């Protein structure tokens, strides 16, 4: 098993800083969804991680803790995530993306 980044929607959707999307070294990995936060009643959308692309470097954790000071991202063993975003289930829209969350571990 290996670590991947996990973003707390509750914290992220209250802040809307989007810094992690700009500092992740991997392309198309930390994405932004308006629905993810607003559907839960928050003011903004939330960032989320396409876990099949995450290499577990934790750079986003440093950026969220030290630059944004939001502490919204934690590294979690992939089998500890009940549901997560995977590239195949992500749809791009005009200004946001939508992800259907699924179990990240097969079998």
């Amino acid at each position, binding site marked *: 098993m290996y670590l991947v980044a996990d973003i707390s929607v509750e914290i992220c959707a209250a802040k809307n800083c989007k810094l992690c999307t700009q500092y992740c*070294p991997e392309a198309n990995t930390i*994405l932004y969804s308006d629905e993810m936060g607003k559907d839960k009643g928050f003011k903004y959308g939330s960032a989320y991680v396409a876990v099949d*692309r995450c290499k*577990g470097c934790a750079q986003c954790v440093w950026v969220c803790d030290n630059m944004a000071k939001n502490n919204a991202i934690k590294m979690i063993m992939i089998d500890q995530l009940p549901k997560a975003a995977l590239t195949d289930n992500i749809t791009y829209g005009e200004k946001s993306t939508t992800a259907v969350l699924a179990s990240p571990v097969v079998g």
Partner: protein
Amino acid sequence: MSLDYVKFTPGFEKFMPKEYRDMVDHGPFGKKVTVSQMGSFKEVLEEHPMCAGCAMTLFIRLAMIAFPNPEDTITVGTAGCGRLAISQAAVPFVYGNYGDQNGVASGLSRGLRLRFGDKPKDVVVMAGDGGTADIGFQQVVHSWFRHERFTTIMLDNEVYGNTGGQESGMTNRGAVLKMAPLGKKFDKMDMVSLAKLAGCAYVATVVPNNPRRVESVIKKAVLIAREVGSTYIQAYTSCNIEYAIPTDKVMEDAKTVENDRYAFSEYVSDEAKEYLAERYGYKEYLPKPAAAAAALPGKA
């Protein structure tokens, strides 16, 4: 070399991989995208074998977003880590043999001008410090002296990271590396001064811990290279493997190095300032009202 190459061949759309379909429908081609929109559009860079947490990868990702017209851009690279990511993007990539990337780019840039006339086709060289300052040094400096109109970007990780950690011309004096156990005995090469001396129209040093600045610097360099002359960007992109930087501290290291020896600097020639202001509406380079008045005859 146009928007046509990012279209589906009729009848084949349903057979294309999801990543390709996303890129055609929601990629940056033909649109203006910025770093503040990152995470909401499909990027041209795809999965690549670069190490986890590599600052060079982040810089390349930002560069791909900053290209003013990705559909009219060709990247040129050479041996080194960077090409592992640069070649995994939906932007045509030419692999120069080690050291000759600026020679290849010179011919490419001239050929594109002959073929397409005034229609801008951008050539961007992205190579490491070894490819630019050591092995490719002669071709790099000669292309600058000839004022070849393309952009050269040095991905400066201050080491030969791909081959086990030998010192390069851009390694700092005293740095001890796996394959340089006694420490480097010479100073880091001052490529920025060399670029200015050779007549580059735009020279900048940048660290990727400020994405908006990286975007701005690359946009300016590519635009200036369309008509004015050679442009050069030197970017600090640490090697977290050879310098043993924990991956979650890569941005902290970038900040420390920026404060220590890699402060942001930007040189824009007068001709380039005038070009950016007149052609692309850069307000910061418009003549100041007072200066303009002073330049009028009889008021000096």
